[in-house]
């Protein structure tokens, strides 16, 4: 729609109305260089896989191919683990905490310097809006390295009565929803604690992890301390099963998490899992309403709902349900869905065709079950993977859309009468990653927070992350915490 001021009858009069479409505001991409092909980072060198096997990685907003990426086979995984082991034995275990800290500070600083390059690449490869990669993902990633740098030479203060020691070689498998940030969440504590690492980025989003590999070289991190093996499920399976690995850290679906737990059964390897969620976002009748609406919107439409801790179930107190849902729908209509590289885009592309199919299937099941669906009207681009922000009302707890993790921009609305009932419904799930509480009353926040079976409780806010704040789930959302003093424990021998 053209940005015109609709002229009043008398051209000399002041304009009557402005229908305003903001105009395209594309972020420049010329400084984010994407290579034609990427090898594996093993022992400090970029190597081509002997198998000669590569896969393509695309931009999910346009479906255009961005690059060819090496596919690590079992032999490559083996080489990476052996390189990590050698680096641990010869170099890293002999590097003082103060020195490890300095490497991590360097990495943090370089990330800050190259922030825009990383943000653009993250958006191109993953589909999330540039304003998110620029304002959330990249700054938080740098902050994670900065925070953990400070721990590297202070581990003796972190666990009373213990002199912590590193575990050795850590195998880390990360997801596609926050590719760079998840790499930071994994690498920073592992390295601060004195371990070496083999990292497997997600199949659909390898590029920022690979660029991070270049940053590690720029920081002159000793060769082999971090190795990166790109590939798909098989690469990850080979890595976590490798006998030369002391510790496994996985973030991804609950289904794969269970498979990894089975694989490691009886092996004595340390394991942490950060899996799926179906978080309840609870809005009570005394909540500051407009801010609660923002919190609900942020909770499920941020990053297209590709968030393990997404507030995918809105539990609203019956007495304000009508008001809240009306405001929510009106607010959804102002969400801008489209080109992730446009600075004004609020909701970007779905990460892959496979994920889009899953979301579509689950949404269809919701309609079939009889829930009412609302999607604000918006034009979607022709190419690429897209799903309109969606909200279901009239949802029963038993519907699949209320039970299963959709991992998309789809919200299910349920009601409750009393805080007790809200807590019961919120806890009535095998998941337990996060929860939200919206109320003006402090004691109620604390009471609900103490009763909600979730690893992270957000009160009057949602989707807030910080390197100092431990993150992780109850029940089938996984075990172990990342971030904060508690998150160090996963990478240390405290016996």
């Amino acid at each position, binding site marked *: 729609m053209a940005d015109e001021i609709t002229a009043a009858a008398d051209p000399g009069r002041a304009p009557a109305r402005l229908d305003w479409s903001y105009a395209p505001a594309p972020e420049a991409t010329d400084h984010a260089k994407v290579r034609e092909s990427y090898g594996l980072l093993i022992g400090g060198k970029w190597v081509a896989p002997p198998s000669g096997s590569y896969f393509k990685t695309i931009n999910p907003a346009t479906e255009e191919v961005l690059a060819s990426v090496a596919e690590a086979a079992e032999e490559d995984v083996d080489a990476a683990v052996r390189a990590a082991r050698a680096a641990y034995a010869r170099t890293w275990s002999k590097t003082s905490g103060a020195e490890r*800290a300095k490497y991590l*500070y360097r990495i943090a600083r370089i990330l800050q310097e190259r922030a825009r390059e990383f943000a653009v690449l993250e958006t191109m490869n993953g589909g999330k809006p540039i304003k998110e990669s620029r304002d959330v993902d990249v700054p938080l990633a740098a902050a994670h390295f900065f925070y953990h740098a400070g*721990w*590297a030479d*202070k581990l003796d203060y*972190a666990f009373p009565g213990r002199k912590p020691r590193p575990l050795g070689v850590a195998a880390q498998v990360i997801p596609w929803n926050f590719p760079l940030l998840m790499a930071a969440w994994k690498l920073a504590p592992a390295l601060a604690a004195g371990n070496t690492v083999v990292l497997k980025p997600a199949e659909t989003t390898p590029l920022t992890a690979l660029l991070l590999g270049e940053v590690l070289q720029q920081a002159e991190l000793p060769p082999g301390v971090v190795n990166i093996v790109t590939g798909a499920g098989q690469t990850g399976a080979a890595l976590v099963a490798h006998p030369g690995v002391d510790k496994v850290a996985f973030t991804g679906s609950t289904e794969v998490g269970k498979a990894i737990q089975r694989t490691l059964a009886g092996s004595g390897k340390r394991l942490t899992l950060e899996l799926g969620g179906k978080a309840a976002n609870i809005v009570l009748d005394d909540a500051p309403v407009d801010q609660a609406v923002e919190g609900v919107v942020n909770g499920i439409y941020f990053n297209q709902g590709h968030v393990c801790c997404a507030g995918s179930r809105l539990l609203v107190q019956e007495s304000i349900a009508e008001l809240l849902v009306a405001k929510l729908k009106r607010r959804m209509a102002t969400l801008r869905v489209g080109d992730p590289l446009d600075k004004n885009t609020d909701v970007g592309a779905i990460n892959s065709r496979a994920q889009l199919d899953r979301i579509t299937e689950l949404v269809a099941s919701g309609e079939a079950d009889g829930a009412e669906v609302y999607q604000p009207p918006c034009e979607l681009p022709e190419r690429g993977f897209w799903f309109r922000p969606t909200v279901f009302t009239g949802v029963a707890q038993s519907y699949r859309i209320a039970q299963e993790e959709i991992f998309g921009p789809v919200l299910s609305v349920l009601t409750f009468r009393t805080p007790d009932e809200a807590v019961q419904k919120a806890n009535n799930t095998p998941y337990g990653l996060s929860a939200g509480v919206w109320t003006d009353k402090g004691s109620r926040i604390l*009471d*609900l927070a103490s009763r909600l079976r979730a690893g992270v409780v957000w009160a009057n806010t949602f989707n807030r992350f910080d390197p*100092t704040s431990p993150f992780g789930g109850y029940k089938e959302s996984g075990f172990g915490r990342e971030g904060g*003093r508690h998150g160090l424990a996963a990478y240390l021998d405290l016996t």
Partner: protein
Amino acid sequence: MEASVADDDRLDVRKTYKLYIGGKFPRTESGRSYPVTEAKGKPWANACRASRKDVRDAVVAARKAFPGWAGLTAYNRGQVLYRVAEMLEGRREQFVDEVARSEGTTHRQAADAVAKAVDRWVWYAGWADKLAQVFGSANPVAGPYFNFSVPEPTGVVGLVAPAESSLLGLVSRLAPIVVSGNSAVVLAAQARPLPAVTLAEVLATSDVPGGVVNVLTGFTTELVGPLAAHMDVNALDLAGLDLALYKEAELAAAESVKRVAAPVRLSGRDWLDDARGQDPYWITAFLEIKTVWHPTGV
């Protein structure tokens, strides 16, 4: 062939050493100075002989800067301290020269001290966002209340810098004061004040807000009294104070119930030793603990 500009005949432009107050470099309002010599007696420069009024002005500046500095996120303060380390690293040679001349050490000894000073800033920078986790707590009171204790900076801290270790000793006591959000008024070592002034130049270029650190050079006996007695100073670190003056300073401090840290006697080698020269409890000495109660109930 033209003589090179860096000839020995070339007259160098000598630095004027002033005070550092409120982010600026004023001279002492008293107009006085005193001669500073190298450790081996050779005349070196004139330093400001600060007055009680300079102490007064420095405390005003420190108080003004305190809310802003304390109000920054811990992450932000940590980054600023790390930036100080970056700037200090870049000026190592200048400091090695000043420290060697001030203390009469070898070049090697001075270089070790300066390198350690940089590393010490880095070490303390990393504490900024860890204090609450290590020294705070959630307290399980016997009742339906959520109760938590958080450390907070105490306010304006007066520091009598170590008398012999002109850079490393100063850094080792200053960084733990400011990392948590306190602001500081520093009385530089009387006989060896010049590295402190140059350190102030580093602070001025490191995004440290003006007034967070103030540096006064002069006669300790003239300055410690007004500082210790000042009613708007919350705490004193008497690290470098002559033991003979300690009791008097503490007596003066009692009028406003200041928190006081006693003089320390550490050798140059001690300051270099991480086991003796750095300690998070030098941070906690200048923290208050705030405990909050809130009922838990629907």
